């Protein structure tokens, strides 16, 4: 006899409950209770269990246990998995090509070409010699301690993923800014992507794609890092001065002209702030993604944890910090240039 027997008898469900007496495997708790021989003695009100799935199952075998829920979810996912990956696989294939291509180029171009090209790009976007010197020093340091290859792998992945985030995120943000319904329905998804522990969405991805494919970690990084650029594009466009929009209307701009000549240029500081955040978040994720075979400094961090190699872990961790500082400073410098060109 269990606590909630009365519930099923008053509902007249006794018969339905008795249908499958041979219920599923015993849980550990059941087993312990049985071995101690203290099955279903009368309880005081103090011990009244919450009418949870497991408690109800004790009174009625046909009632599902809570582990059936997680099991069902898994079963359901496995059932749609094949058809899902049939669609997603070709759709995301280009991501694998981008990542592999970018890694190949970064690693197979000699360092005396890669480093100057990078420095030139830094100068182009920031116009600051000080920053160029800092970047040269940092990369030189990483190369000097033989972490050049790992650092370049990490950078290659971030470039591809951040680029794709901007490519997808900015249009999504624009669409959200123009349509209140879309904004209302997208924000919960963004909230979820941002707060879900990053490890959690690695799990379904592992089921969907083969771990040897680079798009697995590519997707994980993009899902995690796309949020800020979408949010800030939406915000930036919504914050554009109403009077300027009115002026654009009054002079007869088409909606398209308004978007490209007024809204996007005026939202650019916010969009750039979003790009900066997106890059920083992809750096955070690329480390975690080393769990699913993403190459780069994250692999060394993982090695440090697995083999308790304190030195390797610390140095690669500091290497990641160095990369983060570089990426942050460079994007902030270009953001500052955009800002100074159009402060009001």
């Amino acid at each position, binding site marked *: 006899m269990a606590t909630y027997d009365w519930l099923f008898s008053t509902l007249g469900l006794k018969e339905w409950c008795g249908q499958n007496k041979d219920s599923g495997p015993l849980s550990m708790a059941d087993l312990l209770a049985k071995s101690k021989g203290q099955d279903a003695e009368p309880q005081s009100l103090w011990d009244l269990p919450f009418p949870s799935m497991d408690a109800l199952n004790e009174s009625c075998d046909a009632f599902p246990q809570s582990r059936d829920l997680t099991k069902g979810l898994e079963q359901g996912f496995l059932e749609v998995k094949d058809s899902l990956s049939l669609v997603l696989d070709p759709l995301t294939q280009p991501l694998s090509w981008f990542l592999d291509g970018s890694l190949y180029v970064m690693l197979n171009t000699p360092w005396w070409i890669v480093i100057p090209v990078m420095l030139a790009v830094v100068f182009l976007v920031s116009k600051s010699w000080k920053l160029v010197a800092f970047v040269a020093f940092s990369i030189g340091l990483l190369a000097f301690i033989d972490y050049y290859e790992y650092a370049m792998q990490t950078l290659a992945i971030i470039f591809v993923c951040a680029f794709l985030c901007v490519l997808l995120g900015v249009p999504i943000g624009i669409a959200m800014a123009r349509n209140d319904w879309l904004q209302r329905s997208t924000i919960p998804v963004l909230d979820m992507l941002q707060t879900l522990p990053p490890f959690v969405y690695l799990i379904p991805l592992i089921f969907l794609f083969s771990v040897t494919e680079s798009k697995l970690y590519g997707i994980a990084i993009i899902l995690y890092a796309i949020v800020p650029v979408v949010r800030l594009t939406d915000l930036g466009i919504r914050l554009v*001065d109403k*009077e*300027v929009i*009115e*002026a654009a*209307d*009054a*002079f*007869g*701009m*088409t909606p398209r*002209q308004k978007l490209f*000549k*007024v809204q996007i*240029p*005026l939202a*650019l500081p916010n969009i750039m702030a979003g790009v900066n955040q997106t890059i920083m978040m992809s750096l955070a994720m690329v480390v975690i993604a080393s769990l699913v075979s993403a190459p780069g400094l994250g692999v060394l961090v993982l090695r440090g944890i697995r083999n308790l190699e304190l030195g390797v872990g610390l140095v690669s961790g500091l290497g990641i910090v160095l990369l983060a500082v570089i990426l942050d400073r460079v994007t902030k410098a270009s953001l500052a240039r955009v800002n100074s*060109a*159009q*402060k*009001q």
Partner: protein
Amino acid sequence: MAKNVKIAIRNLYKIFGPEPDAALEHVKQGASKAGLQDEHGHVLGLKDINVDVHEGEVTVIMGLSGSGKSTLIRHLNRLIEPTTGEILFDGEDVLALGEDGLRALRRQKMSMVFQKFALLPHKTVLENAGMSWEISGQGREAYEEEARKWLARVGLEGSEEQYPHQLSGGMQQRVGIARALVSNSPVMLMDEAFSALDPLIRSDMQDLLLELQGELHKTIVFITHDLDEALKLADHLVILKDGEVVQQGDPQSILLQPNDPYIVDFISDINRARVLRVRSVMEPVKDGESFAGDVLETDNLETVLAKSGGDVSQVFRVVRNGQPVGRLAMTELTKALVPTAGSEARVS
């Protein structure tokens, strides 16, 4: 007046709220602005507006904030859609225009100057001035000459390559005016264009506008809450209160014959001698009279007072283009300066 009616506003109503058509019935049955808001939850923006905007004139729409003046000007180029009514531009119904027609109207026929300038912060002064050309798909080389000409005309020579944030408020509004002029549209809508500027600059800008208007004879609709500004600029003055026209007409005649306590209140604080002009108080010429001197028809009474040196027995001859058109006795002038009833009550 023999001038063409450029824009005619007929029976225009605007009601803000979820069901404006239902609320319109209540308004037509006589619901007041406050009543409509309390009982039906709708805001009465404009009520039965009928205004003719004449070609080549400055029509000033004046009212306090909340009187619906900004709403009214936005109906002219349909930045706001009316609940019911007609707006005729050169006899053509603006409300019947499709999207393309409306866009063409905004690009070619009407330009607008805004209270907070509304310039594009990421474009240079020159590019801002040429905005209307750029919108219709023409490049910098097409508009550069025109834009430079008008920028120089409003006193911005040498600032063409600067960005708006590098300019002061007054200079930014000069860019706003140049932008409207460069578009070559016959109608200019000015929404509290000078209200954000400090008094000295504002006065400069009013002079600039009058000077430009003297050459260009555009049709200007000007919104303001400032009576002095309205009287200085207006050829035709429309006074709005709570979304209704209280009085409209020649500003001088409104000043001399206000028909509403609201207007009396309004005009009680102004310097009548500076605002009233000789032509409003002069009389027909009598034969064989001797005059103390000549005054211009457009002089204000303050000038005449200064000329007379305070001697109230003098009579002046009024001339227009050198021809005598009337006489002005100082006794008549003094009568015109007597404040209206409302202001007397306030003084005592």
